[in-house]
């Protein structure tokens, strides 16, 4: 439906927004551990990866999207304590008795998608798809930024 496009807003900011956020997060990273540079590469990798996701969530609009909120929440929680939210299933309502409502094939795929997209455990399927679209856009933007950064920094 062409009409649907009118109201589903999946705009992401420009690349420079992502780049700026990523760099800021990375510089924060370095200032956090000024003296103790982790020797292990895996730690560094994890930190960078986390910085990438967090900066992406921020750049995409912190609170505008469910996935970004969930991501930031998860990241913040990890610093303090390890908490996993149990997945709330909003779909378990009295509507369940209508068995033909849920297409089993689609639901299985939606389940996998929920595992992938942060914050996906609590969304209805339509909302999940919207979030997925935005998430995909942001991810590709972030990948581009990181690719350019790597290309720029790698020694010729």
């Amino acid at each position: 439906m062409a009409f649907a496009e009118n109201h589903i807003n999946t705009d992401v900011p420009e690349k420079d927004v992502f780049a700026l956020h990523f760099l800021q997060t990375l510089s924060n990273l370095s200032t956090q551990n000024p003296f103790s540079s982790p020797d292990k590469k895996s730690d560094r990798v994890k930190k960078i990866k986390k910085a990438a996701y967090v900066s992406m969530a921020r750049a995409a609009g912190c609170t505008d999207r469910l996935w970004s909120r969930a991501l930031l929440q998860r990241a913040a929680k990890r610093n303090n304590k390890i908490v996993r939210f149990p997945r709330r299933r909003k779909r378990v309502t009295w509507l369940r008795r209508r068995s033909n409502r849920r297409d089993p094939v689609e639901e299985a795929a939606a389940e996998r998608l929920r595992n992938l997209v942060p914050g996906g455990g609590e969304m209805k399927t339509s909302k999940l798809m919207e979030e997925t679209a935005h998430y995909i856009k942001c991810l590709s933007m972030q990948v581009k930024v990181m690719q350019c950064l790597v290309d720029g920094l790698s020694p010729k």
Partner: protein
Amino acid sequence: MDLSGRFGVRSGGGLLFREETALESLHLGGGDEFRQMVPPENGGGFTALLELPPTQAVELLHSSSSSSSQATSLHTLGVLAFPSNSVLMERAARFSVIATENQQTGNVSGETPTTTSSVPSNEHIKTEPAETETSDQAAVEKQNNRCGKRKDFDKKAKGSSKKNKSSEENEKLPYVHVRARRGQATDSHSLAERARREKINARMKLLQELVPGCDKIQGTALVLDEIINHVQSLQRQVEMLSMRLASVNPRIDFNLDTILSSENGSLMDGNFNGAAMQLAWPHQVMETEQSYHHRQLQQPPPQQWPFDGLNQPVWGREEDQDHGNDHNSLMVGSASLHPNQVKMEL
């Protein structure tokens, strides 16, 4: 108050998501009198219409049915046998607006017979069948139902889910008006389910356009698989790139100045096109950093940065490599200067 002759007019496209626009569409052709007489101060024309006593609403319909040529749809509705229920009166008033909407698609003839049958039979959902799957259908789909008249608790419970739907699609209306196609069941549950499925299909289409190579696949299951694969591949790419970044820069010692200076190519890639590129010269770094901070979310004009002739051949050379990706070419162009910078800082 005499609203005759003004009620029948509307032309305005597929608006009708809000009550104000509904009202405007009502009197678009009719001029401002209508607007003045029924000012949408309480949020829309429908509530104003609701305040009309039922008799006046009916009179409105009948009078308008005899007016302009565009009121043929209204005429068909005027012929309908409206029960004297005030609730249905208001609904009928709304139907006329719906009908006027349908005027656009010209698909009005099918309305009458099924409307009569559906109106008395289905109090809860306004079903206007025989509508094409154009955007208009979706437009009309978003007609609002007066929530105050809901008697069915079933509907109310579903209405809350519909509220969510409509709240995202239609900021003012609490309910989604679903239009059933001709020959399909008008059961409230199946209608809601159909609406939900249509929503999901709409979003699936969106996703299909996003993911490369998905439009050729038939079947939602495969498309979904493809989407999931795409998301997974993107996440893996992020991981790979973060690993590369970690290896490239052994100390996570990102000096913001240098990074920004090197990133200016990427940051301005929208404006770039061979225009002045930011050079990673130290004396310009501070300026660019400040200026960049000032213009974080805007497109920075590159012209204010001096153009170094040295860069030009470098860039020209690099651009050949990757035309498809401006961004990368820019970065590569600046990269030749940048590593020097990085070494200095490190």
